[in-house]
């Protein structure tokens, strides 16, 4: 601070009201929270300044009334301070140039009216010359500082607003559920920034080609030229329009939604009012908003790519493991068949008739095993393929159970198989071939892993909104640690509770895995439930659906007389 002659420049000297006023001015200059200031974004609607000249006029009027009215009662120094104060206060509202001019005029007037000799620009005392010059310089400095502070404050406020806008867009993008909603959020942000109706082009697929209407979505009304411009912007991944350094004569801004690696996931169009000047920071902010969505789309795409690559690798690994598991499962019956057949050929004459019969039986049994394994493997591969189509039809649970039982009976010489179905079961919607294959596998499994004469039961009942097909055995049951793994095609091992039977290691994997795959393909589930009195219950839960009615024109179900 420039020391004024005869005046102690310490803070205590300043009257309290002046200190408060200075603090207010200071805060206005640095934080921008006190004094209302106009926005200077060229594209946005201006916040109207409220009577800047009026306020400045009032300040100067009061100052002059004080200086002239109290001329006889106050000294020159007090009058000078009043002038500086008025100049500073007026500078709060007035633009820099006006403020400097007003201040200069005020100092001249001060010299004319107040500094002796009055009504003359000449100055009597040499120290008064210094005073006048100092007042002028001080007023200029204060005015310039205030103007500078005002610019900084406006910039800080704008930055804060832009940061806030970025944050709000980030929130909106995160909350949005689909790309169109995200695009709408960006559009709203751009409208808020520029006050103009922004339009968007969003690629559905990053590899989309122009003119492919399905490949991109548009938000807002676009004419053909604008659409071409947006596609151009996407392809080159570069902004166009005034202020961007490319095609400045365009009537609108074209901004790419940049992801990474010079890849755009869409573009935004910001129309401009004629002769509008686009400032750097609006451009930067608009581009930053666009890039925010671009990066989000890029991340989503990268993630999707990674997931699909992962799934592919996993599927490949699965397939390899499946092949290994299956070829292992094929060897055992093949060995048995080759053994029995070669024995029949080479030793036929030496064998007793019953031995030959047993060998032939063994060949037949192992062939059936191979056949089932083949069916199951084919089905597993088929169900694993994407877009698998089931031959769905309305089927009666009684008939499904009956067909499975009839086929399973062929390998049930001890007749251990029992079937019970709840009366009045509804029709179920399923693929009959697949579903009976599942029931057959489950029955086969139960027969294999429980010993005669313990019965194997097929129970079909209604449970809430489900029809439950349960295949129950009274075998040794399954170790708790195996109850889920048993459905995994690659798991093999001895899962029977308290038993170490090598037969348990044979072929259970594919059979149960395909059963679960079939249940799930029907929107159902296959679970293993241990039975309280020992043994396992494999239960397929199928959701009940409303079967079509038998129409009037068809014969009624409980028909008339014969």
């Amino acid at each position: 601070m420039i020391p004024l002659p005869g005046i102690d420049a310490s803070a205590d000297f300043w009257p309290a009201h002046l200190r408060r006023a200075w603090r207010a001015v200071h805060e206005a200059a640095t934080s921008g929270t006190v004094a209302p200031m106009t926005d200077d974004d060229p594209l946005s609607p201006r916040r109207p300044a409220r009577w800047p000249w009026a306020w400045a006029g009032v300040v100067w009027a009061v100052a002059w009334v004080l200086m002239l009215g109290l001329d006889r009662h106050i000294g020159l120094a007090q009058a000078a301070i009043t002038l500086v104060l008025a100049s500073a206060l007026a500078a709060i509202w007035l633009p820099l140039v006006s403020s400097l001019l007003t201040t200069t005029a005020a100092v001249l007037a001060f010299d004319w009216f107040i500094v002796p000799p009055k009504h003359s620009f000449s100055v009597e005392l040499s120290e008064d010359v210094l005073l006048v010059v100092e007042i002028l310089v001080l007023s200029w400095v204060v005015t310039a500082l205030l103007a500078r502070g005002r610019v900084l404050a406006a910039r800080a406020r704008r930055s804060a607003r832009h940061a806030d806008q970025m944050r709000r867009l980030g929130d909106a993008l995160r909350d949005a559920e689909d790309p169109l909603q995200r695009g709408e959020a960006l559009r709203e942000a751009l409208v808020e920034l520029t006050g103009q109706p922004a339009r968007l082009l969003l690629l559905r697929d990053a590899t989309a080609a122009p003119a492919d209407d399905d490949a991109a979505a548009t938000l807002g009304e676009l004419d053909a030229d604008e659409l071409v411009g947006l596609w151009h912007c996407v392809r080159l991944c570069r902004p166009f329009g005034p202020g961007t350094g490319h095609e400045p004569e365009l009537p609108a801004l074209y901004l790419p939604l940049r992801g990474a690696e010079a890849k755009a996931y869409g573009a935004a169009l910001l129309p401009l009012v004629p002769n509008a000047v686009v400032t750097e920071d609006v451009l930067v902010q608009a581009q930053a908003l666009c890039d925010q969505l671009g990066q989000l789309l890029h991340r989503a795409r990268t993630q999707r790519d990674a997931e699909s690559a992962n799934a592919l690798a996993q599927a490949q690994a699965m397939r390899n493991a499946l092949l290994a598991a299956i070829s292992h499962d094929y060897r055992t019956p093949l060995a048995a068949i080759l053994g029995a057949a070669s024995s029949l050929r080479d030793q036929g004459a030496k064998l007793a008739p019953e031995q030959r019969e047993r060998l032939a039986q063994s060949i037949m049994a192992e062939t059936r095993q191979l056949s089932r394994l083949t069916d199951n493997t084919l089905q597993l591969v088929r169900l694993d393929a994407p877009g698998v189509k089931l031959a769905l039809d309305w089927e009666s649970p009684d008939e499904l159970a009956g067909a499975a039982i009839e086929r399973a009976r062929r390998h049930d010489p001890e007749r251990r198989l029992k079937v019970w179905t709840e009366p009045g079961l509804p029709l179920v919607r399923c693929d009959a071939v697949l579903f009976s294959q599942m029931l057959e596998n489950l029955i086969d499994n139960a027969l294999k892993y429980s010993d005669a004469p313990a019965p194997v039961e097929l129970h079909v009942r209604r449970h809430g909104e489900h029809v439950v097909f349960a295949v129950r055995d009274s075998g040794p049951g399954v170790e708790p640690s195996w109850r889920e793994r048993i459905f995994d095609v690659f798991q093999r091992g001895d899962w029977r509770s308290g038993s170490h039977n090598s037969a348990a290691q044979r072929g259970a994997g594919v059979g149960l895995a395909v059963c679960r795959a079939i249940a799930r393909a029907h929107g159902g589930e296959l679970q293993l439930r241990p039975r309280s009195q020992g043994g396992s219950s494999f239960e397929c839960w199928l959701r009940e659906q409303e079967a079509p009615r038998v129409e009037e024109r068809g014969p009624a179900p409980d028909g008339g007389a014969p």
Partner: protein
Amino acid sequence: MSLRVLLVEDDRELCRTLKDAMTAEGYDVFTAASLSEGFALLTGLGARAGGPPVDLVLLDLGLPDGDGEQLLAVLRQKHTVPVIVISARESDGQKVRLLDAGADDYLVKPFSIRELLARMRVGLRHRGTSVSPAVTRYSVGALNIDLGTHEVTLAGQPVHLTPTEFNLLARLVRSAGQVVTHRQLLADVWGAEFTEHTHYLRLYMAQLRGKLEDNPADPQLLMNEPGVGYRIVEPQG
């Protein structure tokens, strides 16, 4: 004169095994490894005294030079010779299509010789039934059905059937031992416009089973061939 069988099957091993087995049962077997060979054989064998060139055809589906359906179509234009389709599990759809197109029965590979011979016997018994209904009486276990008088008795007691139930039962009895597809049953009993209404069939089969079977979930008489159709067991005696 022994019965003539045409076996159209492209797998040489299977072809020889089946031929040997059938020859041992006294059939006169002609084999063809492709569709064209099958056509040539049919033409070459010619008609014997107005009858068909062969008495029964075993037709494999996966032939190297075309579809078994073509042979069936040509055969069905002139003759009612029984045709049994031999298929692998993965050609389910084609199997049903052939049955609908007039094939008499089907066998899924792998099958046993006993199964094959049984199906052949059923097929041969049904020869010409579409021309003159030979089967009018059906009897298995305690069940007796007289298609002429519309009488159905179970253990001597008359069983009351609705007209639709009776028509359905009669349609199955006329093809006793053979599978009748859903489509055929619906078309013959309800009419051509009902061929997609399989839920009708489920309902009426359940009613028939309720009246004729001891345990409807463990049928001994009215068998279900999942995804294909129904079969009433072969009559006894």
